[in-house]
């Protein structure tokens, strides 16, 4: 066990676009970074969070004070790299402890060039973001440090999240196939808008062969896989910027469709609903979502800054028949799921693959296979 000494960590400063700043110590890489400041309330699963492509261009504030306790292992990442633009923690672990741990989180962040800050009042920062909303932020350490006015000006020059088209930046460039575990029952074409590793895995467990396609895949490329169903993944950015041609085609052809997170927003837009930016989003693994058909509550993993604007109190008419809001978040009544009543399509705003997070919503993958089964019959 080696321990880094206190004096070895360099000073760092975090500057928000509204001028508030926090002084702490460098964590991970030394340098500078910019992004949208968001907070995540999960107490476990930092490895999954860091590698979730939906966090691309975001600086993530961890509300849990101790981060890095279980180190970094080779099994839990959700993609091939860390996506967060910056990382904010209060008390980083000095010694990781877990039988699967291979290296420390500090080293991993540094190795991947992720600039972070530690030792700040993360609760004060979280309360600030809650009251003022998500906003741009910069983290500076080492040679990037300068007087606060200069730093603030640089934060204000960074691009905003609204209007950002990011799926193309995080998605795979080449198609690949995740084979079914055991007997193959279905083929699914999954559009990678920022997909997490656990998602195709959850489908493969159910006998689905998953063809993961680039975000730019055309309808022809989708149907070239002879899919029983089409899956729309999660991903970063503003759904208002996305191209909906493929989705419309899939709806038109009545191919079973399942979307999650960003995919839910795209389905919503394809149906003619609006999307909007939440004040500070839902990011955590403790969100109560109610399935409005059964009344049951599931505790779910969330990571979304945008949401669908659809009426809760009635069934809506859409170009593809009647649609209803199937799930809502009980904390704030935000739309968490959509369902077409006349065509085989549904989506949820949260993460049934749940990495990190509780497995309560895993049944949604079963619902998808049932749709495909029904379509076949």
């Amino acid at each position: 066990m080696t321990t880094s000494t206190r004096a070895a960590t360099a000073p760092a400063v975090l500057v928000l676009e509204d001028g508030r700043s926090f002084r702490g110590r460098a964590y991970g890489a030394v340098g500078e970074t910019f992004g949208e400041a968001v907070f995540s309330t999960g107490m476990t699963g930092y490895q999954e969070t860091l590698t979730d492509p939906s966090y691309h261009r975001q600086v993530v504030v961890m509300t849990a004070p101790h981060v890095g306790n279980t180190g970094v292992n080779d099994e839990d990442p959700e993609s091939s790299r860390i996506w967060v633009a910056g990382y904010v923690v209060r008390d980083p672990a000095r010694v990781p402890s877990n039988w699967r741990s291979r290296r420390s989180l500090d080293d991993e962040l540094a190795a991947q060039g992720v600039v972070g800050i530690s030792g700040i009042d993360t609760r004060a920062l979280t309360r600030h973001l809650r009251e003022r909303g998500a906003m741009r932020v910069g983290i500076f350490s080492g040679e990037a440090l300068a007087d606060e006015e200069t730093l603030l000006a640089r934060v204000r020059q960074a691009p905003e999240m609204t209007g950002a088209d990011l799926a193309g930046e995080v998605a795979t460039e080449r198609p690949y196939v995740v084979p079914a575990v055991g007997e193959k029952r279905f083929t699914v074409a999954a559009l990678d808008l920022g997909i997490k590793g656990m998602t195709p895995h959850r489908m493969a467990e159910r006998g689905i062969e998953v063809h993961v396609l680039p975000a730019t895949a055309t309808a022809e490329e989708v149907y070239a896989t002879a899919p029983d169903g089409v899956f729309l993944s999660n991903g970063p950015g503003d759904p208002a910027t996305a191209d909906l041609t493929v989705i419309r085609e899939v709806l038109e052809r009545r191919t079973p469709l399942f979307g999650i997170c960003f995919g839910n927003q795209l389905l919503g837009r394809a149906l003619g609903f609006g999307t909007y930016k939440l004040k500070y989003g839902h990011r955590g693994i403790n969100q109560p979502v109610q399935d409005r058909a059964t009344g049951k509550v599931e505790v779910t993993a969330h990571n979304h800054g945008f949401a669908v604007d659809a009426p809760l109190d009635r069934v809506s008419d859409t170009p593809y028949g009647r649609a209803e809001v199937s799930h809502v978040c009980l904390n704030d009544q935000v739309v968490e799921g959509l369902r077409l009543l006349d065509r085989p399509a549904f989506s949820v705003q949260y993460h049934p693959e749940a990495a990190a997070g509780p497995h309560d919503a895993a049944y949604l993958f079963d619902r998808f296979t049932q749709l495909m089964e029904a379509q076949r019959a």
Partner: protein
Amino acid sequence: MPKRTDIRSVLVIGSGPIVIGQAAEFDYSGTQACRVLKSEGLRVILVNSNPATIMTDPEIADATYVEPITPEYVAKIIAKERPDALLPTLGGQTALNTAISLHEDGTLAEYGVELIGANVEAINKGEDRELFKGVVEAVRAKIGHGESARSVICHSMEDVLAGVDTLGGYPVVVRPSFTMGGAGSGFAHDEEELRRIAGQGLTLSPTTEVLLEESILGWKEYELELMRDKHDNVVVVCSIENFDPMGVHTGDSITVAPAMTLTDREYQTLRDIGIAVIREVGVDTGGCNIQFAVNPEDGRVIVIEMNPRVSRSSALASKATGFPIAKIAARLAVGYTLDEIPNDITQKTPASFEPTLDYVVVKVPRFAFEKFPAADATLTTTMKSVGEAMAIGRNFTEALNKALRSLEKKGSQFDFTGEPGDKDELLALAGVPTDGRINTVMAAIRAGATPDEVFTATRIDPWFVDQLFLIHEHAEALAAADRLDPELLADAKRHGFSDAQIAAIRGLREDVVREVRHALGIRPVYKTVDTCAAEFAADTPYFYSSYDEESEVAPRTKPAVIILGSGPNRIGQGIEFDYSCVHASFALHDAGYETVMVNCNPETVSTDYDTSDRLYFEPLTLEDVLEIVHAETQAGPVAGVIVQLGGQTPLGLAQALKDNGVPVVGTSPEAIHLAEDRGAFGRVLAEAGLPAPKHGTATSFPGAKAIADEIGYPVLVRPSYVLGGRGMEIVYDETRLASYIAESTEISADRPVLVDRFLDDAIEIDVDALYDGHELYLGGVMEHIEEAGIHSGDSACALPPITLGGHDIKRLRTSTEAIAKGVGVQGLINIQFALAGDILYVLEANPRASRTVPFTSKATAVPLAKAAARISLGATVAELRAEGMLPATGDGGTLPLDAPISVKEAVLPWSRFRDVQGRGVDTILGPEMRSTGEVMGIDAVFGTAYAKSQAGAYGALPTKGRAFISVANRDKRALIFPARALIEHGFELLATSGTAEVLRRNGIPARVVRKQSEGVGPAGEPTIVTLIHEGEVDLIVNTPFGTGGRLDGYDIRTAAVARGIPCLTTVQALAAAVQGIDALTSGEIGVCSLQEHASRLTASRGE
């Protein structure tokens, strides 16, 4: 789905007296539940024999029965009240077992009472080890995770011995079925240990069943608290990780929330197993606790056990998260679902979520081994701690250091001064879990141990070990620095160092460090426990301190009163003091103040965020209290701080608070000193012309000897400024006096030893009174059943007094008033008197709420603590009489003749402790308090009330059978009448030769039995100890032969404890028991609620 409409009345069963493993947490849970049910419009019927609880306050339930929690008495209550439903999951194992008995004997069916919150099948599946193993297997089949430790069920010693081979040899774990707090369980490393532990386990288990299990010693231990509603919605409220690895009962472990060393995958596996278990067991609605062991080498998960009810851990989880498990369990039991219940803290979001924490919670146990010097202090799977403290910080080190200082025990905080000792010896010592092991680990670190060495010796997770190294590095930095610079100081505070610790390291005075710190502007901020890591705004001001940047204390306009609580429960300072603090909070809130509670005990009602306007979950040290006072002074006007209700802990801070400019309301620190300081108090008595036993104070043996020689042996010796008779002893000769002084650690130049003449054969009397500076209100007069010399907390007592006349009461009143006036009391005072040879001696006075305040309040139906709080802030007795808080006329000294008699009986923890050889510890009573709790019996006459108190405390008095009697010579004369009465009741008497001779000479037949020391007789006649073990004896009377416990008595008394046979250790108790047996045999004993007693009393008072 709204609440059920078919339930209109609910019977709630409490947990009875405070015992190890079942403490104040059930008052917290039960109080919450009763309040919720009442607010839902249900008629709430409550039974609990423990008067020191908030839940037995008459306003909490509609009908409050302070009656024994036995199937017999509860059946009487059911027959009288006819409740629609019975909620058994909030009163611990006692309530659950009672409910199961009432189900099995058909009472529930007969009266059509529905069990809610848990069904019998689920209770059995959760509690029965074999059934639970089946549950775990079914879960594994469904989700592929979770297993049980390999084990065998045994019903006899033969099964047990054979079982060890099946499991692959020693060590093995022994767990008796259906006992609470893991009573009777332990590790056996060889056959001798196995025979002892399993033998006792078979006896303790109501089903004569023990489980033998493979050893998972040293694995990581976790707990999850879950809740389920009738729609099968399940949430995990909290995860808890034990700092101490497997092998130590979770109640005795340092525990941490949330879990610190699990990845999400591993945590979700535990969550999946937990949810599958609660479903498989079939807990319909409510909370449950599930414990896991995780192999640190490969993550293998073993499900240890589950409790299908609210537990100590769920109380801790509620305090740790702000999610009130008991309150929500009660709502779920009457038909609501989680999504229909709002989250109290945010008001806007529902309870169907999982709290997320942005802080760390550490709980540390408090032990009382100093009270039981013979007991083995090794920690095992049997719980031995008597209380706990919890602390919250923004990181683990801050929370841990705060928790350790919350224990308020010498040596509980890390000490970085002096020589740590030998590294290897310290590591070997740390290998065995004991009270204070964490301090041994720190000493080993100071002595140069490496993290690997610490882990190898203790199996404490490397992350936690590193945190201890982190603390140590800060201590080193403090010690090495040239000066106390701001960054150094701020860093130390961020990791929880107290001013006192920093002072010790730097060789400064604590107040100097504080001054420097304040000058540098380094002060704590206060953060909110909000269930959601700040995602939503919180409505509830539930605070903890941290050395962080932003404070969340809101300004206020109303004047605040800060009430200092009593800290962790310990013997001598328990739930009774919490009761008074809670009452003060209620009364002062009603009187227009904003009440601010400070306490660090997670078991209590005072630390429920619902109790006061603001709650600070903080240690009760001078430093922590001063910072809170500062923060509240910044927030608005502060009317004062109340120190006289939380026992000795806050009382000890009074002078220092005043010296720091803090307004202490009520009895002044100077007045407190007058009562506490022996010399000063002697002058108060002399001025009032009141006699005290001859006494003196000394700081050395020669001084003490001179005093003892002058006043004559026996003498009562004790250190000054202690509670619960700590270190108090009756000394019969000079040799013992010398060794007492040599052994005592509490005696120093400024803490002298007090030497008093010991009054033999005196009647001891306790008085609780209110004084406002002009008028006295005599709250109650309690006559002890045991003679003076037995600590008042361990003695049974009766109120109103049963043998004192009007003249005695008059003398007591005059003396009490003279002392209250002389000392300068403004609020409550408790005085102990001894009546010997018609002289009324004053033994001591305590200018604070006493242990008996809740008992007196309930027995006389007058809220004394509420009145005391009001008087502290300037109200007069006359005003409170006019308001109706106190009776318009009369007081506790003028109770009407038809007032009910209340008997308080102490409950002692003997059965919990073993010495290192595994034998029981002796059960004799003495001047040092050792009881953990108390019960109250209330009825029209003394005999019945006494019988109820015994049934509530130890199990019913026998009405027939064999009584064994063996008494000291001085008790023989007093024995004759009660012994004759036993014969008249048809008892057969057994006696040792000396006692039998006396009895026979007085015409009382008694069979001589052999003493243990005489061994088995020539014709194979068994000794008395063998007879007791064989269940041949129903009642034991054995008074000790002086101190030191002669071996025969010791064997008899420990055998009685092991077999659970009533054992009376004073002749006075026998006399009372005879009256109780009279009452039991002379007819049906009824039950009566406190509300009924009160309305009768009020009616009589009005005449």
